[in-house]
């Protein structure tokens, strides 16, 4: 709260002092960022935007791209398709940005992807995992990988950890149900039993009834995925209601952990590798240096960071025009190892075969305890 007010005051003061209009000087490269700064899932979205910011800081500190500084223009999507399109139209047409890095579900990403394709612009997706995103090759590139591999590995992992009955809890969208189905199928194929499936609508004030039903079903373990405020609320309900079976997750690092002490040693799962590598560690260090008073960041900072980094490399290799960026992106990605590990794209610019790690929540943060080939 204090931060927000303070920010506002500082920005207001800066606005009076600064020369408006000088923002887009000729020696900068404008890059658009679309995030939902209001509406649902705000915290997660802000984390992604900060990841982009960290990358831009790093690039600019190193002298920019061929001497030109990256200039970020952040727009709010309100988590609404209309506003996302307004933001994208403004960025592409008024600010003339060649590329936009965006956070948002498929209901926002797909219309903006379609716009980007029609206009011959570039969009980098950091958050949506819909299979339809592959329909815009040459315009829409994804840093976030598709789900089914992770889900499948998760099912096997849970069985290997000794669980024989599980309950699943996921948000009711393609991402959540996709993971639940893949993990459930692998788990059942290995010989396990699913005792309760929950797919919740996001944005509910509490998930008490869901958690109670899971407790009543007495599973050996809980398997799920989630992010943002909803995951935090699920944890809160589970903790308060005394649920204490282990928790296995796909992408545990994008969870917003609610209570460090309670979660300690309880949560593990299959995640994209990379956060534990040098790149990830460096981003984490930069984050803590820039925002020292904040809680542990979410994994979305790494996706935001990598998105900005590959974009910068593509501009460096190809040029500042959208077409040049789109042409250069697939090749620069091949040699890039970022905060989320090695990036492999299929021929439509969608991330596949992400490095998979087993990570555990210990002592307030995630530790990599193994890898999956």
């Amino acid at each position, binding site marked *: 709260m204090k931060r*927000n007010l303070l920010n*506002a005051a500082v920005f207001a003061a800066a606005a009076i002092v600064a020369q408006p209009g000088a923002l887009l000087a000729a020696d900068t490269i404008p890059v658009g960022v679309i995030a939902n700064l209001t509406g649902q899932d705000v915290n997660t979205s802000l984390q992604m935007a900060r990841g982009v910011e960290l990358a831009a800081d790093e690039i600019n500190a190193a002298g920019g791209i061929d001497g030109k500084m990256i200039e970020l223009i952040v727009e709010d999507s309100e988590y609404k398709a209309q506003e996302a399109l307004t933001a994208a139209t403004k960025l592409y047409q008024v600010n003339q940005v060649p590329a936009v890095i965006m956070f948002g579900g498929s209901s926002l990403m797909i219309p903006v992807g379609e716009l980007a394709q029609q206009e011959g612009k570039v969009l980098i997706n950091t958050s949506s995992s819909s299979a339809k995103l592959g329909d815009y090759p040459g315009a829409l590139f994804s840093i976030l990988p598709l789900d089914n591999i992770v889900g499948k590995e998760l099912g096997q992992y849970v069985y290997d950890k000794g669980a024989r009955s599980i309950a699943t809890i996921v948000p009711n969208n393609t991402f959540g149900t996709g993971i639940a189905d893949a993990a459930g199928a692998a788990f059942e194929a290995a010989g396990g039993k699913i005792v309760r499936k*929950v797919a919740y609508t996001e*944005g509910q*004030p*509490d998930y*008490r009834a869901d958690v109670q039903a899971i407790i009543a079903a007495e599973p050996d373990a809980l398997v799920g995925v989630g992010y943002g405020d909803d995951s935090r*609320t699920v944890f809160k309900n589970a903790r*308060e209601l*005394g649920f204490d079976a282990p928790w296995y997750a796909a992408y545990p690092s994008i969870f917003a952990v609610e209570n460090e002490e309670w979660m300690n040693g309880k949560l593990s799962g299959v995640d994209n590798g990379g956060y534990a590598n040098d790149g990830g560690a460096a981003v984490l260090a930069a984050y803590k240096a820039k925002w020292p008073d904040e809680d542990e960041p979410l994994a979305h900072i790494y996706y935001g960071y990598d998105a900005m980094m590959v974009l910068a490399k593509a501009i460096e290799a190809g040029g500042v025009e959208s077409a040049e960026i789109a042409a250069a992106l697939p090749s620069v990605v091949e040699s890039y190892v970022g905060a989320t590990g090695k990036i492999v794209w299929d021929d439509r610019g969608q991330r596949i075969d992400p490095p998979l790690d087993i990570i555990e929540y210990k002592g307030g943060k995630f530790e990599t305890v193994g890898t999956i080939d």
Partner: protein
Amino acid sequence: MIQVFVNSIIYASEIAIVAVGISLAYSILRFANFAHIQFAVVGGYATYVATELGLPLILAVPASAVFVGGLAVVVDILVFSRLRHISPEGKMIVSWGVALLIRAIVASIFGGGSIIIETNTTPIRFAGAIFTSLDVIVVSATVAFMVLLHAFLYRTRTGSGLRALASNYDLAVTRGIPGERMIRLMWFISGAYAAIGGSLIALETRLQPNMDLIILLPVFAAVTIGGLSNVFGAVLGALFLSLAQNFIISIDFGSLVSDQSWFVPSQFRDYVAVLALVLVLLLRPSMTKRGAN
């Protein structure tokens, strides 16, 4: 099954204490106040701020209640008192404007993300039901505040004055009850109860500026089932709604027709609230006929 009742009582407690304020305002001013829901949200945030400043909850919630009660009075002085003569639906639209304004201010100050107020709770298992020590506090607090409100309305002169205004405003005023002063008092109570309810909800769930949109329909449904202007009817309405909501998601419909178990997903609780709201409004011919002559 006990679990269903326990959950219903907990949820009903959260909703009821917000709902009584709407009924109270409706009984005297005859309009459904959207801004009331926002008073609850402000109450939740005020409690959060008070705890951040180091106040224990037992003081933070009353402080929040006084603050929001005052806010409700200020809103009345600035807005509603100048619009006593306009139609009920006009007041409803204005109250939406007030709600929007307050929500935007809250979001500007606290940011759009959600906040969880730290509480120390322990799980309790009783007769096969699981709940928490916080739940016990929430339910007891609600019962206590309801008893208090009942005693005020039925055991004090001021309270019976308020009831007289509710049953016939003009008549009560001609008999010497100071209408406008009592309306201010009513706003204070209504705002304070909203704040208490909002704080309890915040403790049980989480705080976010658009929390109002989540609790709007259940609260209005509870008020409507209770008969809009009947203060304690709203409590029964909340209980009835809550029972219906929790039963619908606890019945294993799947096992009734096959050996696969299938439950109505918990988000369908919202339907129960909206459908209850709409059906009750449609099926109240005696009330809908009012104003025919």
